[in-house]
């Protein structure tokens, strides 16, 4: 006879020692919220990298987009008064990015990656598309980096 099964069959769902586990969990979660919750940093730009290589930089103040390393990806940019709609095409697939000029917010609105996790990101957190190797995060730079030639 299985002791564990026999015990579980005849016991209540909670025991007094469970309080130890629940208190530890509560303290852990509270500390996670205090130390790891994303804070809105003063950001002057947003940098995107593809497999570690910088591919574009968005300057919050000037509302300009600068592209780098055009050998490794292609892009299609549509600009309106209040938004940039940027489609990035990689070997692995595409990501459709929307940059709001007024709020300086960036989000991925469409992608053909598996899971589409990059479309559901926490506010102020880096946007990461693992299947496509794309990482988009805020940068606090005094001036934008110079584009590479060739």
């Amino acid at each position: 006879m299985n002791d564990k099964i026999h015990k579980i069959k005849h016991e209540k769902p909670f025991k007094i020692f469970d309080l130890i586990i629940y208190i530890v969990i509560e303290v852990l979660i509270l500390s996670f919220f205090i130390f790891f919750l994303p804070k809105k940093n003063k950001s002057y730009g947003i940098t995107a990298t593809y497999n570690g290589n910088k591919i574009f930089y968005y300057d919050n103040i000037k509302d300009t987009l600068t592209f780098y390393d055009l050998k490794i990806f292609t892009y299609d940019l549509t600009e309106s008064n209040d938004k940039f709609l940027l489609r990035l095409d990689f070997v692995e697939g595409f990501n459709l990015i929307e940059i709001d000029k007024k709020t300086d917010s960036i989000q991925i609105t469409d992608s053909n990656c598996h899971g589409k996790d990059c479309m559901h990101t926490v506010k102020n957190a880096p946007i990461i598309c693992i299947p496509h190797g794309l990482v988009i995060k805020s940068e606090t730079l005094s001036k934008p980096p110079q584009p590479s030639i060739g």
Partner: protein
Amino acid sequence: MTKLTTKKIVVTAILSSLSLITFLIENLFPPLFIPGAKMGLSNIFVLLAILLTDFTCSLSVLLIKVILGSIFGGSLSSLMYSLPAGLTSFLFQYFMINLFYKKFSLISICVASAILHNIVQCVVYAFVTNAISLVYLPYLSTIGVVSGLIVGFSTFLLIKILPQRILYQI
């Protein structure tokens, strides 16, 4: 060391297939509010394997679920963070249940292992993406409490409802 009987092999196979099917069905749904958040209902069968069989069989159920689930789900890249997270929470559950089942309830062990699973997943995710940012950890931990409670209660109710003659003969 316990013998590997035909009954154990059959039970392991059934639990593996149920776990894999649940995992694949869950994969079809979008993530719960944030990337990587799932209910983890497939862990019900891994937990049942820990309770009904031995270490080797229950580990087989976990590995079959994680490895085949990644292959059939079409996302091999998810294996790099679901495997270490799955192994860590499995080892925690196995040792807690076998050493402390008289002191702690099944549900609390489930909740703790769900949180541990999410912590390991977040840490590996941060290393892999070079983000060095654990911003998802608070949210995933909170969702982990809920999923741990659901998995724990479901397994607890299954043990209560299933007839003794089925459970005690394995």
